[in-house]
């Protein structure tokens, strides 16, 4: 029996539910013809190899070669995460000595908070939040440690250490102003608690702000990776003091309830995770949330799309995540305007769209954009 992409996606979800301890039922895979390499590739694409390995640990149906490769990979992931964690601890101490208030964002510290163990998340680089006024000084100090600036963006600076190969991002905003001006202006990283990592206390934002920052980050990437949704599911279990009324009320004041409801609807649909009644009720009240969640799921196992379709998808997701019709209209207008700007060679221009796809397709895209 051959499996298709949807089968592998369902199998992966089953594994993730088990790894996140949301389901204790034994894993069931088709005995013959199950495409293990495809499952692994899908897990790899979603950066959830450590969780897949945790789920398959006790399963007898996993071929020895697959198990061996998974375990070997997970050892490398842990070693890399420990390497990042030790560097993070040193950097925070370094900043503290220099009077710079810095806070870890995602990475090893949040992995420890959400999963309780550095083994369960693939961490690519280090992210640190600090005030924009301290960025220049922080970069100067980091150059003493061998870091060089690789890229400056409108919300962060990327640095790399050629000696160790480590990447570091210094953030002063949760997202780019063009992505969401209201959210980009928020300062969500006032220290509310601490966590001990490698014998060092590290500051953390409040549970509500951790969730909100995770929601913003996932939304920026259109929830394309299951890793970010696993973080949300893990946060629901790991942050028992999280006050949902505060989260919904803060998001509502900014007109961003959909931003926080979408990942919750997704983890409910994907992992059968029970949501607090206030959250479940809020999701019911906004029918677009369930539609968007279903749409995102389809993309999780879809094959690669053309550059044009990807551009349309990215913009449509950004627009559809807004609750206000007026905001959606403004974003659509801004998107179209960007396409006709001179020298925007890398952009897709409407006239080219018409030539290639014709008016019917354009109308379909517009409908998709507006949700």
């Amino acid at each position, binding site marked *: 029996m051959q499996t298709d992409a949807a089968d592998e996606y369902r199998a992966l979800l089953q594994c993730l539910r088990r790894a996140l301890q949301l389901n204790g039922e034994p894993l069931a895979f088709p005995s013959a013809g199950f495409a293990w390499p495809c499952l692994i590739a899908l897990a790899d694409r979603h950066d959830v190899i450590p969780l897949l390995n945790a789920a398959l640990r006790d399963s007898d149906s996993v071929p020895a070669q697959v198990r061996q490769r998974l375990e070997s990979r997970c050892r490398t992931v*842990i070693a*890399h995460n420990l390497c990042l964690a*030790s560097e993070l601890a040193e950097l925070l101490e370094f900043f503290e000595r220099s009077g710079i208030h810095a806070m870890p964002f995602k990475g090893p510290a949040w992995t420890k908070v959400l999963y309780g*163990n*550095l083994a369960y998340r693939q961490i690519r*680089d280090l992210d640190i939040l600090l005030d924009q006024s301290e960025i220049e000084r922080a970069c100067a100090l980091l150059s003493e440690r061998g870091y060089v600036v690789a890229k400056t963006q409108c919300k962060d600076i990327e640095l790399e250490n050629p000696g160790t*190969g480590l990447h570091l991002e210094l953030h002063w905003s949760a997202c780019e102003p063009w992505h969401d001006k209201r959210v980009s202006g928020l300062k969500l990283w006032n220290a509310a608690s601490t966590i001990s990592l490698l014998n060092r206390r590290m500051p953390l934002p409040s549970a509500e702000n951790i969730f909100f920052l995770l929601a913003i980050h996932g939304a920026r990437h259109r929830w394309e990776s299951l890793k970010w949704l696993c973080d949300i599911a893990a946060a629901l279990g790991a942050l028992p003091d999280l006050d949902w009324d505060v989260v919904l009320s803060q998001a509502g004041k900014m007109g961003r309830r959909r931003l926080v409801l979408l990942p919750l609807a997704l983890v409910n649909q994907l992992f059968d995770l029970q949501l607090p009644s206030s959250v479940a009720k809020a999701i019911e009240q906004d029918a677009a949330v369930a539609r968007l969640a279903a749409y995102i799921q389809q993309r999780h196992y879809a094959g690669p799309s053309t550059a044009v379709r990807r551009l349309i998808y990215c913009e449509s997701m950004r627009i559809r995540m807004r609750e206000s019709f007026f905001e959606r209209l403004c974003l659509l207008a801004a998107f179209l305007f960007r396409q006709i700007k001179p020298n925007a060679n890398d952009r897709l221009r409407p006239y080219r769209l018409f030539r290639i796809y014709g008016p019917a397709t354009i109308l379909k895209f517009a409908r998709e954009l507006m949700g």
Partner: protein
Amino acid sequence: MNNPKARREGLFSECLAEETVIYDKANHTAHTLNQTVATVWEWADGDKSVNELARLLHSQLGIPADPGVVLLALEQLQAAGLLETYQEVEKETERTSRREVARRLALAGVSAAMVPLVASVVAPTPAMAVSMVIPE
């Protein structure tokens, strides 16, 4: 012989199922310790003798209180640079061998997975930690 003392400085550890992964920042290397070696590494504080460590292994993991098992674990820790006192261990381990320890544990009905083992993990790089290729 001095009591064995594990190195702690510059080492960071995390558990993966029944293994412990130790990252050595100074050398940018990582080692995977099975449960037996991890327990010895954890308890080797310079105060406990080899016999005491053997009794600890017995109480914690159900392994026979065999000093040979501890000595083999210490030998492997020494080779990985995870011990502070190692000269003395080297002399003691001449008396034992991995095969002999494995045979004794097997006779006692202990799983082969409990035979002391330290595996070195290739020094990880960011690229290695985020990409995986599994052949068809």
